[in-house]
């Protein structure tokens, strides 16, 4: 009985030590799981990736609006719709977004953007945000706003 208990204890300790050792080993040489997806080319030259991933962090490139009426409500609606698509395509969701950068090309449009922006997030899961107005026409593709995201899987 005593021998059996000792053997079981030894077994448990050995496996715990084994787990501990492998953990230390892997912590020192962390495999860099870096994936880039959705490369966008311009004139046959790769410009940027739609998203990159590291471990379970996901970085989504900025998304603008290039369709529909040129109002801030419409542009924000399209941007948030396409951002949601990009976030979900990368394996994340709107309730797992940590940080957004929001750019408008006119400071007066921030209130209009906020109305649509706020509605896009699940209750209690709004990301942190920095919002800045750029010079008129400064958002590529003549978009009235652009939003990017850092989220996780």
């Amino acid at each position, binding site marked *: 009985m005593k021998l059996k208990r000792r053997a079981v204890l030894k077994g448990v300790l050995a496996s715990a030590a084994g787990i501990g050792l492998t953990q230390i080993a892997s912590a020192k040489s962390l495999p860099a799981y870096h994936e880039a997806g959705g490369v966008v080319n311009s004139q046959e030259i790769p410009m940027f990736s739609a998203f990159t991933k590291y471990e379970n962090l996901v970085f989504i490139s900025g998304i603008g609006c290039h369709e529909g009426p040129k109002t801030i409500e419409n542009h924000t609606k399209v941007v948030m719709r396409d951002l949601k698509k990009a976030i979900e395509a990368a394996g994340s969701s709107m309730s797992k977004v*940590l940080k957004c950068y929001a750019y408008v090309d006119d400071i007066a449009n921030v209130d209009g953007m906020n109305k649509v922006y706020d509605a896009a997030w699940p209750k209690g*899961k709004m990301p942190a*945000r920095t919002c800045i*107005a750029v*010079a008129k026409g400064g958002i590529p593709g003549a978009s009235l706003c652009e939003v990017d995201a850092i989220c*996780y899987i």
Partner: protein
Amino acid sequence: MKTQRRDILKAFAAGIVGIAGLGFANKVKADAVHITGESAIKNRYPEEPVKFTKLGNLIFASGFICLPHEGPRTLENHTKVAMGKLEAALKEAGSSLDKLHRVTAWIDDPANYFPLNAPYAAAFPGGRRKGNRSCMAVSPGNIPGNSMVAFDAIARV
């Protein structure tokens, strides 16, 4: 209630594992607790309603600004007020200006790029700037609240 208990248990388990030195707690894991630091008063635009979010030990702070009623419109005052708000948010998230990975700074006048450095350094404990920074100038009035500066940060617990 169930998810609350589960989250508490997860955090407890993560704590035990961390103490045991197996190193799980240091990774940003998929089941790490995701916290949103919302301000007590909702819809505080032009300030951001969410002050920070946190995943495991990684913190993303929102952009902080100085509002018109918060003192004279000087670079020194605006930097002091905005950095003070950033520091308060980091403290609430369990971090501090000593544990920064990155600050992004916006100014509303390119001429303020070098003058920003003195009040920016003064905002850090010990009066010395820490960590890396990216600084960008936008057109006058283009920072919400007509602030002269905005600062956000990525930090760790």
